[in-house]
């Protein structure tokens, strides 16, 4: 019984990814002369996981359902830039961040509806649909609406919210680092994703659809409805995440997230999600995002020349996917 359980656990991708994360942390800790686990570094790494981590959750949930979303950065970008632009244009320079959040969530949901409508009504490759909507959303935001970068005019409420922190730590050198409040939404979104995927019938529907869409339909799920609401929820969440980013970076830049999908999607796949759907866990995804963040945030510490960072990043992803591909092959044997 216990043996069987151990066997099952060691078969899972997230187990390996977690091991890799630990080994990587130890290796970097040694290579950087003990600088990685310095409290301020840890806080910085956790902080920089926030936005990528939340996007990874969104990406994961879509991938579980057998989809492939390229449009989420564009949705987030359009949602937050439109929302902040409205705030600024209405002269709400003092406005509370919540107004912006609500607007962004609504806009995100509306954009998600377009994705959801197309994907649930027409049998189309989701990657292509979201490629199209991504292009469209960028065109709407920068072409049709001509949304501009907002930095100094960003409403005060947004900035204050972004500056707020949970606690502060002092490193051995006496350097103060603060843990951003935005870490809470990150944790909440991870928990919600995990609960939705594992504890609700909606979540099981996503796995079921990802595993075998016709069977899901025959089992009694309304696949179209599930898919539609999935993309609406994803859109709304993207709007929310976008606003978190605006508050953290204290600037709303319509183009800032474009291309982000190319770093998030590899992380999610590294974490055990399958591009064919039906596989993937929150834990594995967090570990994978952890690996990528730790690596990219400690390149300087371990002495990798800045000019070589892209190369090194590429190699890390390559090694990661190779390991999981080989492992998958072994498992299927």
């Amino acid at each position, binding site marked *: 019984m216990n043996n069987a359980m151990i066997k099952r656990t060691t078969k899972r991708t997230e187990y390996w990814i977690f091991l890799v994360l630990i080994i990587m942390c130890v290796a970097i800790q040694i290579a*950087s002369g003990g*600088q990685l686990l*310095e409290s*301020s*570094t840890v806080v*910085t790494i956790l*902080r*920089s996981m926030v936005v990528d981590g939340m996007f990874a959750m969104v990406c994961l949930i879509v991938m579980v359902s057998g989809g492939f979303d390229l449009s989420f950065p564009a949705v987030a970008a359009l949602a937050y830039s439109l929302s902040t632009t409205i705030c600024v244009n209405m002269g709400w320079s003092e406005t509370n961040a919540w107004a912006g959040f609500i607007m962004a969530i609504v806009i995100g949901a509306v954009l998600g509806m377009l994705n959801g409508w197309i994907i649930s009504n027409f049998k189309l490759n989701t990657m292509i649909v979201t490629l199209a909507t991504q292009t469209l959303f*960028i065109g709407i935001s*920068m072409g049709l609406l001509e*949304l*501009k*970068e907002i*930095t*100094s*005019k960003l409403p005060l409420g947004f900035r204050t919210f972004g500056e707020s922190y949970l606690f502060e730590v002092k*490193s051995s*050198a*006496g*350097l*103060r*680092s*603060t843990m951003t409040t935005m870490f809470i939404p990150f944790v909440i979104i991870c928990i919600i994703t995990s609960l939705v995927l594992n504890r609700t019938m909606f979540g099981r529907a996503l796995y079921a659809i990802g595993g075998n869409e016709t069977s899901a339909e025959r089992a009694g799920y309304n696949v179209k409805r599930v898919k539609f609401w999935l993309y609406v929820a994803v859109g709304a969440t993207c709007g929310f995440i976008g606003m978190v*980013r605006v508050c*953290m*970076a*204290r*600037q709303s*830049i*319509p*183009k*800032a997230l474009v291309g982000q999908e190319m770093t998030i999607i590899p992380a999610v796949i590294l974490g055990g999600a399958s591009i064919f759907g039906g596989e993937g866990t929150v834990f594995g995804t967090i570990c994978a995002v952890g690996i990528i963040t730790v690596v990219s*945030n*400690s390149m*300087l*510490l371990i002495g990798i*020349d*800045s*000019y070589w960072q892209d190369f090194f990043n590429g190699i890390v992803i390559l090694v990661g996917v190779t390991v999981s591909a080989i492992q998958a092959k072994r498992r299927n044997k």
Partner: protein
Amino acid sequence: GSSNSATKETTKSSEATASDTSTGKDAPKIAFVPKVMGQAWWDHVQENVEAWGQENGIEVIYKGPTEVDAAAQVQIMTDLVNQGIDVLLFSPNDPDACEAICKEAIDKGIIVISTEASGMENVTYDVEAFDEAGLGGFLMDQLAAQMGEEGKYITMVGSMTMESQNNWADAAVERQKAAYPKMELVPDARVADDSDAEKAYELTKELIQKYPDLKGILGTGSFDAPGAARAIQELGLTGKVYAISVAMPLEVKDYLLDGTLGSVALWDAGVTAKVMLNLGVKLFNGEEIASGANLGEIGYDKVDIQGKVIVGQGQIAITTENVDDFGF
């Protein structure tokens, strides 16, 4: 200023006379190609270009690539040149990449004026707010003064492939080697923040972690100083670590006021754009330009012409005193 409006008058009148005469020259078709669309910096330029267009009654096509990509920019320039314009103004992502299309444009009789591209061959003129080494040296001088001319520093750029930012950073390092022997460039030498203040913030923290005795960060992109300042402030290192870069005044106002940043550098690209527009019209109307000419904007009333390069005195240090003077 008054000189400003004076040029406007002359431009207008010369135009009026031009259209009356038998040469039949209409208002020139002018196009301005920025490095990229939709960034605050270039939005500011766009506003200035549009304002100029309204004042002078000349429609200016303002059109740039959607990504910081030389190839995409050249494609747009190709379109414009082929659709028939009289004056092409641009700021290249990559000067070398634009040579060919510029040559074509000049062969077609188009007046070509570039900026931030002092090395270009196939242009009628190149307008610079300052000379390239000048900005790097200027930034270094400012930083050195704040650091007390000693200590370790590092350079930061928006991305490793941004030509002009790299040039300025190189010039800054040159300047340090020549003038500030007690300052030292750390082994990492240069980092890139992907033109993202959040990344600049993370990088700064990481740098300070790695180099506890780091004293200065010299950035050349407009996101460098704001991001670095946030990290410095959070780490409680105000007055111990200094950062400087090119930046938009209002973006760094808070940091200047609370002393996290001593100063940032700026040139008003909007003004430079207007100068280019004025110059373009003058050339279109057949006027000759010589050293000491007045191009109608502050800093350009007595320009210095070296070959094809017209250099103004456009760079400005932004400090607490003048941060509110710009309105952007």
